[in-house]
């Protein structure tokens, strides 16, 4: 299982999903109406490392963070 956390303003509890890739995770998240509008604008970290490759594989125990648009300072 992979744990998915939604950061900052995305009002959504963390969830556990059974997926093997970002592609699978993406399909799963696009099914949820409360999450779908965020996805185009969000970046992704796996185990706290930012990911740029859409083919990135996921393995059991991975922690995926969904990061919406930022504004520090």
């Amino acid at each position, binding site marked *: 299982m992979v744990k998915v956390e939604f*950061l*900052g*303003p995305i009002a959504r509890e963390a969830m556990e999903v059974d997926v093997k*890739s*970002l*592609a699978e*995770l*993406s*399909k799963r*998240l*696009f099914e949820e109406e409360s999450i779908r509008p965020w*996805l*185009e*604008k*969000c*970046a*992704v*970290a796996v185990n*706290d*490392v*930012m*990911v*740029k490759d*859409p*083919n*990135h594989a996921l393995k059991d125990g991975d922690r995926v*963070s*969904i*990061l*919406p*648009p*930022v*504004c*520090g*300072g």
Partner: protein
Amino acid sequence: MELYNGPLDVKEIFGRWLDEEAKSNYGAYIPFVGTIRAEDGIEALSFDIYEPVLRNWFDAWQARAAERGARVKMAHSIGDVPVHTSSYIAAVFSPRRRVALELIEEFVEDFKANAPIWKYDVIDGKRIYAEDRSTPMEGAGLLASARDEK
């Protein structure tokens, strides 16, 4: 890298950083102090931070600064920061002024674009996500493009 609940003690942080590097033989010290402006009827701004990714971002910056003989420091607030108080200090120490001037600009701009921090206006005690002033991070949209992969 230092995170605080609420407003920063700007003088304490500025002075302590100065003292920390007093014998490091840097010729230039440039802090950037960010203060909450009174505008649009807000009483405060409020911040969420995702610390593990922020720490990785900061450590990568420290390595980048070290390649140019410099050092960076930063402090940021978590939670509510009232108008006219400060939420952010970034600083560069460098042997020479040119590198310091270039780095403080790059460091602050990259911070704005890529530090995992979310800002909210506080109006009548309510937190409202500052969506219009927020920027998608580098690599945003990955899940949308991943959906098109096999």
